[in-house]
């Protein structure tokens, strides 16, 4: 019965390891970079890679180019990043760009990963990618809830984990770790950064 | 043996129906109506019309009133509770009640004038199994009205389905 509906195959999936030795000199992510640069020159501000790992390739994008590059990467057959598997942020209170918003993409067809980043300042809004990947909806809500990064034109801009009346955003580095601190309910409007 | 029960059931009918019309909560009124039906079927049993009694419970109490309750419960009962129960209709109500009472009294008093009425149920009760008697009468003497009633009910059913049916695109 199970065999009728579920078709099984003994093996499958392309292995990226076999491709790597063929072109050892090419830095990982070069093809992708060229792909994006040809269509949207200047969209990629910076490219970082962790040593020479293909799956840790990171493009830092200009925030106004994010949506179109994302759409392009999703739809182009050579990249085909159909899954936005993770979306998060990191807080750097001392830097000029306070937040790095990180998008982790997965291409099922090519079995590879790509990271996009957008650097934003304190009160800057990030364009939403929930129109590109539906999964971004909740993840952006999470980033807003925990970091206070606002997403422009988000369809459902509510908090997700914390109570609606929570005063601030607990994953910021300046959030107190001990004591009553932000947890006091009597003063919900303590520090609404970004307003 | 029968008399005390007759008084009990009659008192039940009168009491329950009085309570029913005076309740402002529709649900309570409907439930009291069910109680009235139950007492009524008790009277039927005393009259020997067991079949009628059972039908009374099965159809009126068990069937129709449940549907009534259904629709009432789906409405906003809270509103009806706050409404004024008696409007400026007292005059008409009294008038109609008097007319009805007179009518009933006339019918009862001139009972002999309607030979068919006299003890129809009682007469059937005297036969051993009144189901057979009822069946025989229904399917011989009253066959035509019976069929007319069934066709009417069928038409009503079809109409209800047509009215209630929604097209669902799924």
């Amino acid at each position, binding site marked *: 019965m199970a065999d009728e509906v579920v078709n099984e195959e003994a093996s499958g999936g392309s292995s990226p390891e076999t491709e790597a030795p063929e072109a050892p000199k090419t830095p990982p992510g070069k093809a992708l970079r060229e792909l994006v640069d040809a269509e949207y020159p200047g969209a990629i501000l910076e490219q970082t890679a962790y040593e020479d790992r293909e799956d840790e390739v990171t493009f830092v994008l200009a925030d106004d180019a994010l949506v179109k590059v994302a759409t392009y990467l999703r739809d182009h057959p050579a990249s085909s990043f159909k899954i936005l598997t993770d979306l998060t942020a990191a807080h750097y209170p001392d830097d000029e760009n306070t937040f790095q918003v990180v998008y982790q993409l997965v291409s099922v067809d090519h079995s590879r990963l790509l990271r996009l980043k957008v650097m934003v300042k304190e009160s800057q809004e990030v364009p939403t990618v929930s129109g590109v990947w539906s999964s971004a909806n909740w993840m952006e809500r999470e980033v807003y809830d925990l970091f206070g990064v606002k997403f422009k034109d988000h369809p459902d801009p509510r908090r997700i984990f914390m109570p609606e009346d929570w005063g601030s955003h607990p994953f910021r580095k300046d959030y107190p770790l001990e004591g009553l601190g932000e947890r006091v309910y009597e003063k919900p409007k303590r520090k609404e950064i970004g307003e | 043996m029968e008399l005390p029960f007759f008084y009990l059931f009659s008192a039940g009918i009168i009491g329950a129906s009085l309570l029913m019309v005076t309740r402002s909560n529709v*649900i309570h009124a409907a439930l009291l109506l069910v109680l009235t039906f139950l007492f009524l079927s008790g009277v039927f049993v005393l009259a020997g019309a067991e079949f009628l009694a*059972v039908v009374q*419970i099965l159809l009126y109490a*068990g069937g129709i009133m449940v549907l009534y*309750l*259904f629709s009432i419960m789906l409405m906003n009962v809270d509103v009806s509770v706050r409404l004024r129960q008696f409007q400026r209709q007292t005059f008409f109500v009294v008038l109609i009640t008097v007319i009805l009472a007179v009518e009933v009294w006339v019918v009862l008093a001139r009972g002999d004038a309607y030979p068919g009425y006299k003890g129809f149920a009682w007469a059937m009760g005297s036969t051993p199994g009144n*189901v057979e008697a009822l069946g025989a009468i229904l399917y011989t003497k009253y066959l035509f009205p019976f069929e007319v009633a069934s066709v009417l009910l069928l038409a009503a059913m079809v109409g209800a389905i047509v009215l209630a049916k929604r097209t669902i695109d799924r």
Partner: protein
Amino acid sequence: MIPELIAAFLKIAMVLGVISLVVAYLTYLERKIIGHIQMRLGPMRVGWHGLLQPIADGLKLFLKEDIIPAKADKIVFVIAPIMVLAPAFVVYSVLPFDKNFYITQVNVGLFLVLAVSSLGVFGIVMAGWASNSKYSLLGAFRSAAQMLSYEIFLGFSLVGPLMLAGSLNFQNIVEAQADVWFVFYQPVAFIVFFIAALAETNRVPFDLPEAETELVAGFHTEYSGMKFAFFFLAEYASIMAISTVCISVFFGGWGGIDAIPLPGIVWYLLKMAVLIFVFIWIRATLPRYRYDQLMRVGWKFMFPLAILNIFVTGLLKLLFI
């Protein structure tokens, strides 16, 4: 007249007492059987193999705090469990347990059973509405719709055997099966009846009204203590009642095999045990139907089947008898 009344009351009290006890132990039986089907032991702690468990449960329910929700309609809320339990017990007044062991005989016995058991719906609808909770109300609606529909199939499935017996009186029906049980003449009617009986008693796979995973517990969500126990008792009492109807109409009531001389009541109890076991077995095996599927099964499958059965029975009776 007075001794007559006293005798009648004693009879009623006896049957009620026995039935209450049997119903309590039915819960024990169910827990034990399901337990063993599910590779566990069931109640073991209270008494030998947990035999005193039902009594302990009853005691616990008696002593529990009786909560009436603040927003509930108090009168209806209190009456509802009684309205469920009373019909379930009234039914026994006409059910035969042996040739001479019954409370009363009524000409329209079978019909009366159907009518009285249909009153149980009121208790459920009242409970659901009076609790003033959405879960309860939804559960009550489901239950009412389900029981109303399946009552119809239940009634129609019984018409076939009735035509064979030519009577609504239980004694006559059972006597008509002295030679051959009606289940052999009326297998279709029996199947429809059995499925409808499952639905009528809210048993798996038709236990939607009290589907704890969807509606928490349906119409009795807000009930506790003795009132809750009433619903529970009523459910098991009606399982017994409907099994008795089934035995009387399809399995020859107290009649047994002539070769084995056993008292009628023993035959009755044996058949009852088998039937109840099947009820419990089904509960341990099947998942639950969805509401619309339940209605579809009823109206599109069982209803035509029952009607067809009546038609064929009538035709055959006309031709051969």
